[in-house]
């Protein structure tokens, strides 16, 4: 569908109508009465007095001369290198918004128009995982932050830097006595999200703002990363800068991440080198391409299998030492297990049965040594339980895994003798053979249900891969349900971003848009496999991607249900022996089916669908990718199988 760029009201027509309206308002009352006029509806507002006072009234607006407080704030945001501000426009930060678009020339940062604060934050979440740094998010006092809260929680759980500014009218005597300022102000705005914020502050002066803004950025970017919040008073934003105000910006220096101490690293290397069956478990181990390469170097030095839990792009999917699906076979035989930034180490080492009497059992063998390198314990809070079960380990380093890898590699190589090298080579050869057999099995598995309708997720993944494999692509969705993505070869840090972290639904679409925004300047093809249930939470981010020309290919995994929840109801019905006739009540999106293509078209996107015939998928993908390559978002509604 061609996207119209013509505004709904032509500017020239708009000005004519304004001029006519103004003339009417200014016309003497006698003339108006003399004209034959059609019956008019009652006026909603009083007319402007016909006689304009010649002397300014005492309460006339005083124009700001020089710079406003929010201009300085924008200077600070520019210093921090924020490329974008994602925000839903709101009165409480009108000063900042005006400064961004006029004083700051709407460049670095550029204002990105969002339509839901949850989407603003999720866009920042996705952006940060590609770009390795935050963008800025503005939100309205109280209600805007409340809307944003779930997305903030996701970012907190996912250890992603999100940089937020919300507004408040601190001085109650200056609040508009009408409704807005009072209900959108709070004694302590940060309390709304403090349980899952890394840090927050309420600066009461511009020098205080500068200091806290730089501190917030530094804390957000220090592993373990996380969201930060500044609550900025509206008066401080809107008023002119007082003469003599200190307008210096403190220097930003990002600290080097914490590394494991040399003794602990040497001991870890000793255990790994001496182990007969070491296993490396990774989750959020790599933040950068260098992190991936270091992890490959460590695994190859040991010829040890790597089990990737998928929190980030950690390890190349086609590498012979990638043994992720063999967790059940490898963990029970392991004598040393190294966990690198594993958010839930316990789950990697134990099984859990969801039955009437819930049961767990270790899958690792007794006496196996556990080594953990993670920053998880460096920022842990009490209320929300995202820290998961406690795992007793033999050697724990409260350190950043990526930063510790170089010294661990060096120590491992130093301790490796020729004899151990031969053992490693034998081990690696066996693992490589298992990997190769497994890859061939994946391709064979994809043939089952190949021509089925609804389209199998394997077919969807294969058709997509055929179109993107020769391009510089980035999968910007945390699509865990389409496991046939094993058909793809992942080896770049931006090719896989992990999931939401907190499991808050509604993350997928805006996070994909934010990641695509980050990918845009790099010329990457951003691909989003979009879950239907997720999109239905806050679809308006589609408009944001159209408005800001964010090139993003979204392919629906439209299975018309919350299938995981449907499975839970099935489980309960089976457990209670009540039959499954009604199991779908409350979990499916049928009768009527949602027409996602029309939805996307309504937001201004090129869209096709619903696509139910697998033979139509490849050609549709080609057409959609052509649109994306022209710099616009494109959307395909693919009716697919549940998993």
């Amino acid at each position, binding site marked *: 569908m061609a996207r119209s760029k013509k505004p709904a009201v032509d500017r020239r027509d708009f000005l004519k109508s304004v001029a006519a309206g103004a003339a009417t308002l200014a016309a003497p009352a006698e003339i108006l009465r003399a004209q034959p006029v059609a019956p008019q509806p009652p006026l909603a507002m009083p007319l402007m007095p016909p006689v304009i006072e010649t002397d300014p009234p005492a309460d006339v607006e005083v124009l700001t001369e020089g710079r406003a407080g929010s201009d300085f704030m924008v200077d600070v945001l520019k210093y921090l290198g924020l490329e974008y501000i994602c925000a839903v426009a709101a009165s409480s930060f009108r000063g900042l918004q005006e400064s961004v678009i006029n004083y700051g020339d709407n460049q670095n940062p550029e204002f990105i128009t969002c339509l839901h604060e949850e989407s603003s934050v999720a866009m920042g979440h996705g952006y940060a995982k590609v770009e390795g740094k935050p963008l800025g998010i503005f939100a309205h006092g109280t209600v805007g932050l409340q809307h944003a809260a779930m997305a903030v929680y996701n970012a907190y759980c996912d250890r992603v830097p999100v940089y937020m500014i919300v507004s408040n009218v601190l001085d109650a005597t200056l609040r508009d006595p009408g409704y807005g300022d009072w209900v959108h102000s709070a004694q302590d705005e940060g309390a709304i999200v403090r349980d899952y914020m890394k840090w927050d502050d309420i600066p009461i002066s511009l020098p205080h703002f500068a200091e806290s803004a730089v501190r917030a950025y530094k804390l957000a970017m220090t592993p373990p990363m996380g969201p930060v919040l500044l609550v900025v008073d509206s008066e401080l934003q809107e008023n002119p800068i007082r003469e003599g105000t200190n307008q210096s910006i403190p220097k930003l220096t990002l600290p080097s991440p914490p590394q494991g101490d040399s003794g602990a690293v040497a001991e870890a290397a000793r255990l790994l080198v001496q182990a007969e069956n070491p296993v490396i478990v990774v989750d959020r181990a790599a933040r950068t391409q260098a992190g991936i390469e270091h992890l490959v170097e460590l695994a190859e030095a040991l010829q040890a299998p790597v089990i990737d*839990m998928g929190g980030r792009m950690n390890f190349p999917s086609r590498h012979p030492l990638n043994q992720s699906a063999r967790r059940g076979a490898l963990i029970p035989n392991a004598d040393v297990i190294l966990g690198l930034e594993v958010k839930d180490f316990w789950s990697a080492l134990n099984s859990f049965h969801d039955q009437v009497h819930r049961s767990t059992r270790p899958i690792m063998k007794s006496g196996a040594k556990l080594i953990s390198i993670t920053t998880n314990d460096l920022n842990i809070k009490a209320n929300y339980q995202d820290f998961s079960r406690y795992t007793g380990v033999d050697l724990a380093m409260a350190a950043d895994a990526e930063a510790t890898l170089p010294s661990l590699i060096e120590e491992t190589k130093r301790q490796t003798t020729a004899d151990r090298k031969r053992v490693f080579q034998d081990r690696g050869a066996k693992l490589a053979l298992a990997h190769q057999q*497994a890859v061939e099995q994946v391709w064979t*598995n994809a043939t089952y249900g190949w021509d*089925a309708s609804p389209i199998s997720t394997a077919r969807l993944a294969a058709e997509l891969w055929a179109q993107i494999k020769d391009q510089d692509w980035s999968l910007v969705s*945390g699509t865990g349900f389409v496991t046939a993505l094993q058909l793809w070869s992942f080896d770049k840090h931006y090719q896989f971003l992990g999931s939401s972290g907190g499991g808050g639904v509604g993350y997928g679409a805006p996070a994909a848009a934010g990641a695509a925004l980050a990918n845009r300047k790099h010329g990457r093809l951003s691909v989003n496999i979009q879950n239907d249930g997720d999109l239905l939470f806050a679809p308006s981010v589609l408009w944001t991607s159209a408005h800001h020309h964010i090139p993003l290919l979204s392919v629906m995994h439209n299975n018309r249900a919350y299938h995981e929840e449907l499975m839970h109801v099935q489980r309960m019905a089976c457990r209670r*022996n009540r039959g499954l006739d009604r199991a779908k009540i409350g979990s499916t999106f049928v009768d009527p089916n949602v027409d996602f293509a029309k939805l996307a078209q309504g937001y201004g996107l090129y869209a096709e669908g619903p696509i139910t015939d697998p033979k139509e998928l490849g050609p549709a993908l080609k057409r959609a990718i052509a649109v994306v390559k022209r710099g616009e978002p494109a959307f395909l509604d693919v009716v697919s199988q549940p998993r």
Partner: protein
Amino acid sequence: MKIFRVYSSANLVALAMALIFSPIRVKGQNAAQASKPSEASAGNAENGKRIYTKYGCYECHGLEGQGAVTGPRLGPDPIPLKAFTSYVRNPTGNMPPYTAKVVSDQEMADLFAFLAARPHPPALKNIPILK
């Protein structure tokens, strides 16, 4: 042999994410365990198709029994009917048990017939984009 597996919600997404990076996923059965053709004739494949959907088997195993992250491939060439029925009644993994009250023995045979009737997939070499 575990032929069904349903993961808890707490682990499902994380597991699925992990498996994207794994080379192995859906395990089929081996040839030695395949059913005899006569077993399929005991059931009504059409009714099996209906109840396969109605009872939600497709949720974990795909509409064609092809398997997914949540459960292995079931057809074509399912495991013997007796073993199939036994497992569905008393699964050892995270799959919920389906008693005879929920799925009768005849329905079990129908399900089996449906799975046995699934077409064999095209050969890998005949699918250009999988070459």
